[in-house]
């Protein structure tokens, strides 16, 4: 029950944390002038008028970085309990961790070799 209390703190924190910075923003909305016109609300593009659809060029690079990050994120998820229990364990644990990390580092070097990590 005490653990749940701790998480109740975090839950309330999650609710309050966006509200605290929202207060100055609302205060600003009260004090600031509010006179929108077509020129002020136009999209900013270095002073030039926008032409055509707003389309962002598809770059595979972003996606590749995202994917590699995802794989390393999952690796981290596995490594945290390993590191947590590490002090109580023996060399076998080190070997298991070594194999795990080694396989993923292999994948990183593969990506490196295939120039997937270079930002074009």
């Amino acid at each position, binding site marked *: 029950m005490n653990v749940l*209390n*701790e*998480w109740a*703190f*975090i839950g*309330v*924190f*999650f609710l*309050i*944390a*966006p*509200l*605290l*910075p929202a207060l*100055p*923003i609302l*205060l*600003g909305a009260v*004090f*600031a*002038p*509010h006179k*929108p016109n*077509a020129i*002020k*609300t136009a*999209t*900013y*593009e*270095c002073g030039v008028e926008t032409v055509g659809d*707003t*389309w*962002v060029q598809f*770059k595979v*690079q*972003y996606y590749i*970085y*995202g994917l590699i*990050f995802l794989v*390393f*994120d999952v690796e*981290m998820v596995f*490594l*945290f309990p390993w*590191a*947590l*229990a*590490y*002090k109580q364990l*023996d*060399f076998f644990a*080190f070997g298991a*961790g*070594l194999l795990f*990390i080694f396989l993923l580092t292999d994948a*990183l070097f593969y990506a*490196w070799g295939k120039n997937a*990590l*270079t*930002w074009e």
Partner: protein
Amino acid sequence: MDCINQLAQCLNQGGMDSGLAQFISIFLGVVLVATFPLLVTILLIWVERKFAARIQDRIGPNRVGPFGLLQPIADVVKLLSKENITPAGADKPIYNLAPPFMVAAVLLVWAVIPLTPYHFGVDLEIGALYVITVASIGTLAVMMAGWASNNKYALLGAFRVVAQLISYEVPLAMAVLIPVMLAGSMSLQDIVKAQYGMWFVFAAPLSAILFFISSQAETGRAPFDLLEAESELVAGFNIEYSGMKFAMFFAGEFMHVFTNGVLMAVLFTGGWIGPFAEQAPLLGLIYLLGKASVWYMISLWVRNSVPRLRIDQMMDFNWKFLVPMSILNVLVIAFLLQVIKQVGLTPIDPNNFIQNLPQTVVLLLGNVFVGYIMLSWVRSKGRQARAADEAKKMPAAAVHAVGD
């Protein structure tokens, strides 16, 4: 958390229903813990500008109040009075939610930081993992900000920022693995208490450096600040934000840098540990803030001294240097810990300084070894690159010589 429980009991005895008392005391605790960093941020605005000014051989704000101390208040008043221009076609709910969520992502970290031996928000048993988790929420807020502005430069800027943020999360998390391994617990209070015998910065300096560099990149500080460089990409993802929303992004960034300083202090330099910290908890808070300020000053110093990296240099640096180095670091420290255990050098009483020395020395040597390997590898790469450049220039020089 203990204070919150005591307050709840107090209210309960005063006649209030126990559940409601619990809720009210939790609420007050949350507000207290969440307001503290916001107040510190107001001071930080002044510190940043004065420090940057002095490094640049000028005085900085000195007109508003003694030594310019009231400058942040003037800034806040100015920003409050600026009109909030919402761009046409912006996705209003997401546009308005992005700034509070970015600040919230930083505030949430403060819930688990142990301020003194007895005062903290909560002592989560997964404290270190929680810190990294909350960092990933911040990247989402940036994405939302860039998207909702309905501006393709903002979106491009947001993509680059998010790519940078997610890339540098990998060495950040790997660097946090080391204090967790050394302390045997993910709870931040336990990590601090495990440093009674020896601060982790001496046993694992490479991890401290890795964490420092990664956290600089995570907050978008120089040398990684291409994306907020005022002279470059027209201010990036927060270009369409004005007034207080823009102020929130900036305040969030300052708060983030200070929070990283506090995390450095907690994870590597012993947090609230210092003489008489247990008897007088306020001293513990002062020690923590002092250590955090030292790290904060170092990050300000770096920010004002080094040129910026291009985005491709940043990404190469992360994936081809920091990530392999952090992986090697984890493996070497894990190996050495096992060796230490077999040889019998593990300190029996972790709080004893002398007993910790042999383990610390061994780990330190391991760190130096890893650092040496990585640096010599980079040096050889650099030499290769230079030799290749010379070779390209050589034929041209030979042609010149023949032509004379």
